């Protein structure tokens, strides 16, 4: 074996070994090249000057898959403008916690991530940078939108959202009703059951399928379940509890019965129905009512602006005449405390830019992009029709239903409730509802005590 051959063999095996490790080292490249691109003279220690130069970089782990494209574009624009590298990664629907858990243990951990409220914060508070006194905190339109952990400001809400029952008013008209005919649960029940009775003649159903697939079940185990919780909190004058009583569970049941028995398919099939199924049924005019929120505007816009309306989710409790839509947030930005100081600074600058600069606000608020209502001073008039409907409700003096579901004890609680609802939908017996009740009440106390 000649010497050159030996060297060749050595080089080949070295290359083989390196290629195995390449996966681990690859991601570091951008931050390195970025430091050079910033134009700082080599040799001078970076990040000491205190200004927000191109020293740090941002890694945003995004929660909302429907806005992934917009965030990617916004990140690119920010990099063009400032030279700071922004990496946006989006977790798959329902996989945020899983993704965050593995991402944050990496060397290049997300510098910007999000939690869904007090319960989510309990898990991540050791990673949250105290945002009090930061520039972005000064931009909040109200301190209510800060997520506090004692005196530390751990998170900042970046979007306010509203949900209710989205209505195809054209179909509702064909059935002989208008939005004004529905002012309470009793009205809604009457209309829905009438449509079901004439389903074959009308050619559409009352509700879209209340799909219990993972892509859709949050609409019921979380968003619909918010209503009995909200009314119980209101009745008791509290904002959170260790032991829920389930005062309004019968109303929850009546509403769930209405959804599952007046939708496009047999209730036994709901376990297999997805979120896409519901959307498809709504836009192809197979159903009049579709429970979802402002974030779904892009999905339902095809129905046509003139045909869209929204109703509060009436469950037959409280002052129904003045009940509004459900408005709140479960999206709080948190900055990773363990990130490098220059990265934290870069992240804070990026957040500030998103909610103050023209481009940032355009992307966040415009209906062509994310269509958010942001709780910051710079919030723009929205072109999201559903947002405007929500604003009208507030302007008309109705009382918005608060989002109480961030106080739900855990993801586990929601999942158990969802499974119980699915089982009940397939076989609507009192015994199965008892399982739902246990999942709601007993499991609340059990999960809260953990």
């Amino acid at each position: 074996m000649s010497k050159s051959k030996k060297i060749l063999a050595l080089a080949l095996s070295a290359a083989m070994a390196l290629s195995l490790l390449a996966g681990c080292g690859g991601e570091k490249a951008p931050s390195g090249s970025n430091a050079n691109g910033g134009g700082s003279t080599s040799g001078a220690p970076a990040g000491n000057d205190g200004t927000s130069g191109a020293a740090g970089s941002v890694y945003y782990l995004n929660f909302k898959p429907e806005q992934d494209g917009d965030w990617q574009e916004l990140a690119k624009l920010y990099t063009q403008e400032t030279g700071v590298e922004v990496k946006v990664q989006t977790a798959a629907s329902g996989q945020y916690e899983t993704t965050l858990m593995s991402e944050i243990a990496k060397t290049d951990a997300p510098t910007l991530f999000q939690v869904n409220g007090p319960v989510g914060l309990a898990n991540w508070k050791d990673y949250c940078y105290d945002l009090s006194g930061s520039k972005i905190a000064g931009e909040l339109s109200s301190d209510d939108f800060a997520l506090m952990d004692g005196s530390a400001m751990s998170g900042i809400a970046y979007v306010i959202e509203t949900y209710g029952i989205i209505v195809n008013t054209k179909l509702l008209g064909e059935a002989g009703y208008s939005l004004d005919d529905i002012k309470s649960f009793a009205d809604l029940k009457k209309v829905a059951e009438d449509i079901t009775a004439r389903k074959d003649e009308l050619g559409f159903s009352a509700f879209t399928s209340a799909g219990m697939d993972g892509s859709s079940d949050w609409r019921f185990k979380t968003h619909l379940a918010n209503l009995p919780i909200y009314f119980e909190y209101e009745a008791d004058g509290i904002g959170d509890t260790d032991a829920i009583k389930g005062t309004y569970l019968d109303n929850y049941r009546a509403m769930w019965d209405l959804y599952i028995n007046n939708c496009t398919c047999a209730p036994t099939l709901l376990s297999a129905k997805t979120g896409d199924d519901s959307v498809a049924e709504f836009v192809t005019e197979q159903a009049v009512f579709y429970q979802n929120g402002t974030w779904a505007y892009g999905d339902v816009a095809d129905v046509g602006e003139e045909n869209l309306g929204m109703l509060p989710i009436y469950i037959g409790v409280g002052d129904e005449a003045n009940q509004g839509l459900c408005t709140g947030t479960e999206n709080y930005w948190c900055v990773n405390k363990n990130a490098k100081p220059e990265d934290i600074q870069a992240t804070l600058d990026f957040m500030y830019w998103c909610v103050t600069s023209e481009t940032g606000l355009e992307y966040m608020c415009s209906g062509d992009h994310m269509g958010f209502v942001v709780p910051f001073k710079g919030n723009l008039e929205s072109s999201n029709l559903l947002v405007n409907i929500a604003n009208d409700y507030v302007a008309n003096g109705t009382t918005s239903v608060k989002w109480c579901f961030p106080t739900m004890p855990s993801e586990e609680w929601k999942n158990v409730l969802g499974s119980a609802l699915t089982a009940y939908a397939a076989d609507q017996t009192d015994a199965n509802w008892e399982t739902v009740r246990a999942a709601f009440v007993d499991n609340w106390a059990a999960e809260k005590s953990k």
Partner: protein
Amino acid sequence: MEKTIKRYFPIFLGPTFAAFIIGFIVPFLMGIYLSFCDFRTVIDAKPNGIDNYIRAFQDTDFVHAFGFTALFTVVTLVLINVIAFAVAMVLTREIKGTNLFRTVFFMPNLIGGIVLGYVWQLIFNGILARYDLALKISAKYGFWGLVVVICWQQIGYMMIIYIAGLQSIPGDLNEAAEIDGANGWQRLWNVTIPNMMPSITICTFLTLTNGFKLFDQNLSLTAGEPMKQTEMLALNIFNTFYGRVGYQGVGQAKAVLFFILVVGLGLIQLKMTRSKEVQQ
């Protein structure tokens, strides 16, 4: 030549060995350590003794998952091996198109578990929807659904191993038995199967451990619905680790218990079937 091998073996072994250490040994040891810790992410662990193990045993879902997995493994172990053996017997006869049949039977094995689960979910739900039923409304449907999918996927693989085994039996053994007046069953029980024991050892080992380790198909086909009744051990561990705040350590403890269980069962099974192997 030998001298060269001695001198250069680190170059050839090194990369694989490094990969094995990085990808298996280190995570494995870390996992054992973490099962005695309270942690959120793997870098901030604080030891908390055997607390995790106590909580793992208190979890009724884990115990249920064990029962469900054990039942599933027994059923698939029997079905897969019996059917694969039968198919192998048929496809070693001289029929036209044997190779085509072998290929077709083997093909399901080339599809990944998640895809398989979702495709079969569509098939099952498509059929059940005719009767206004769905896969996730009853644990019974989920169980048999999983059995069908796994059988469909693994029979072809086991069949290939059995075919190889069958072809390695010397023809004169069967011939001699036939001359001695043995009928078909007697030849199968007394000649073929004893000679097939090495293949049977491998196949039962594979089906046993595959049954216990099943994850992808479980996740995509039923995801444990309804109400965790079709949740198998691996999925239960995954859900504990990732789905529940503050339960990461418990999930890790379950994983260690799971490892001990699978290794233990595997060793027992190997010992049992090995003892029946015959030397030709």
